[in-house]
């Protein structure tokens, strides 16, 4: 499903200095697996997830998703990939604060040119999976941290993507909400989704549903 070969990412600062965030990463993730990337802040976890989400291009190497090298995609094909194949859950709750939760689920759906009926059906389903349907018409600015996280999950899964990327998903949640998140993630795994979680939260350490764990240290896979 996901195949990384000699993946490197180097950033250039404004004063011309180079910083390599990822060094020759090679790994394989099967469809339906749940994997965890561990590592301290700055180890390259988020960069790796951005590359997997096609929000960032690698400096070198291959990123194969279902047999296609997404690193070579133009902006248009990358956007189609993000729309149909991958869902991205961030640690900060990036939502459109002035809109309601239901309205926040519109951006991924309107670009698919669905009808209102189809949009309503997809929205209802995603909100139910994320266990936040009761807050559908609430402005997201009025939601609690846990509810915002579930709103982000609902938006991420509304297009029924096969791959779900989670970047420090429990970093801003209390334990009760973190456990709720785990329940949702387990449900998604049961549905056959491929889930990639980048986190150093100890909550995930003993989780038996995680199939593989990778440790990142200063951009190297250990």
């Amino acid at each position: 499903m996901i195949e990384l070969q000699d993946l490197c990412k180097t950033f250039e600062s404004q004063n011309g200095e180079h910083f390599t965030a990822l060094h020759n990463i090679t790994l394989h993730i099967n469809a339906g697996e749940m994997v965890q990337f561990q590592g301290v802040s700055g180890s390259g976890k988020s960069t790796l997830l951005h590359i997997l989400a096609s929000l960032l291009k690698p400096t070198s190497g291959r990123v194969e998703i279902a047999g296609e090298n997404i690193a070579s995609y133009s902006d248009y094909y990358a956007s189609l990939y993000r729309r149909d194949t991958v869902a991205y859950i961030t640690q900060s709750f990036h939502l459109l604060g002035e809109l309601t939760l239901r309205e926040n689920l519109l951006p991924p759906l309107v670009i698919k040119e669905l009808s209102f009926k189809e949009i309503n059906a997809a929205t209802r389903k995603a909100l139910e999976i994320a266990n936040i349907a009761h807050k559908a018409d609430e402005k997201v600015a009025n939601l609690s941290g846990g509810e915002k996280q579930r709103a982000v999950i609902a938006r991420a899964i509304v297009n029924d993507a096969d791959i779900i990327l989670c970047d420090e998903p429990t970093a801003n949640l209390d334990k009760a909400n973190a456990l709720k998140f785990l329940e949702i993630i387990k449900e998604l795994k049961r549905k056959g989704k491929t889930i990639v979680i980048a986190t150093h939260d100890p909550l995930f350490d003993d989780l038996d549903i995680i199939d593989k764990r990778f440790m990142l240290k200063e951009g190297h896979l250990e």
Partner: protein
Amino acid sequence: MLPKLHFLLLLLLKHKKKHLGIFLLSALLIALLASTLFISASLKKDIFSTLDAQADITLQKYQAGRLMNLPSSWLDEALAIEGVTKAQGRIYGEHYYEPKEEHFLIVGIDFYDEQVQKNLQRLLQNIDIEAFLKRKNMIIGTGVKKFFNEYAYNDYYIFRPPNRSKEKVYIYDTLPQTTALIGSDVILMDIEEARKILGIPRDEFSDIILEVPNKNERLTVYEKLLVSHFNTRIITKEDIQKHYENLFNYKGGVFMVLYSIALATFLLILYQRYSLITTADAKEVAILKSVGWSIKGIISFKLEENFIVAFFAYIFGVIGALIYVYVFGAPLLRNIFLGYNNLQNDASFTPAIHLSDLVLLFLLFVVPFMLAIIIPLWRVAITEPNEVLK
């Protein structure tokens, strides 16, 4: 409504504070230019409808740079020219209205003349010529009426001719508002009465008007008149129309230059305003990109969003201009356009809206607006989302 349009309107409402300033400034600019166009079109319409009833050629006598009365013998000479179907002497002159220290223009007309009757009936539908001529009557312009009323001359006014007699003339009617642009200070009365009040001898006229129905012959008639009397001034209907047209085009042109400067400044502000990529902008773009929006999709969506702002600013500006000009009578701007005759002009604006003007205004505003923001929008759309999405 389409889901995408629904989302577009939601975002517009979300960004209402951001758009409000641009919207108001745009509407103001549009209103300013639209008002100029409406006033100009309205004045032209009024002038041309009034001037249509004017003589084809007017002949005046000048001596030592001053306008003189001309002898009645010139009437026959003019009538002898091929192409001239009618020649008529006119009597007019200024009357000094002491209470307000203003001058009115007394115009004597031949009420027995068929054409004059037709023209008058076109201006005043209910005029009864017979009743008018039964006693000394006059028809006054709106400005004159205003001044007469101020001093309670509601029914009549007593003129004092140069021979120190008194001429009591009754007010029969007031000229319609549409003629106020050039007839505000006019008093129309019987030609013999006007002659008496102005002290013009029986064998003289203030000027002569000629009817030359064939437009192609007017130039020949003009040349012949010029040859026969060197000390004349010959004015054609087209000259008068051109004079007024140039006057309003000139004033409209000055406004166009001012508008262009204001528009250029506005576009610069717009460019700079949209070049500032705020955290909120970057976050919104990052969210849209993360859920599958392409750069092209974001740019076109943002263009649509701003097009709606520009379009509604245009609609509001035009409606505002319509109300400003046709309901409130364009305070401030009216004085610049109308200026003064003898009296301050109190003309109102007759609705004259040309679709081509509105289309031109739309293109002159919306197209530069969209061009000014396209590069800043592209810059926002290509913002890397990875820093924002951490």
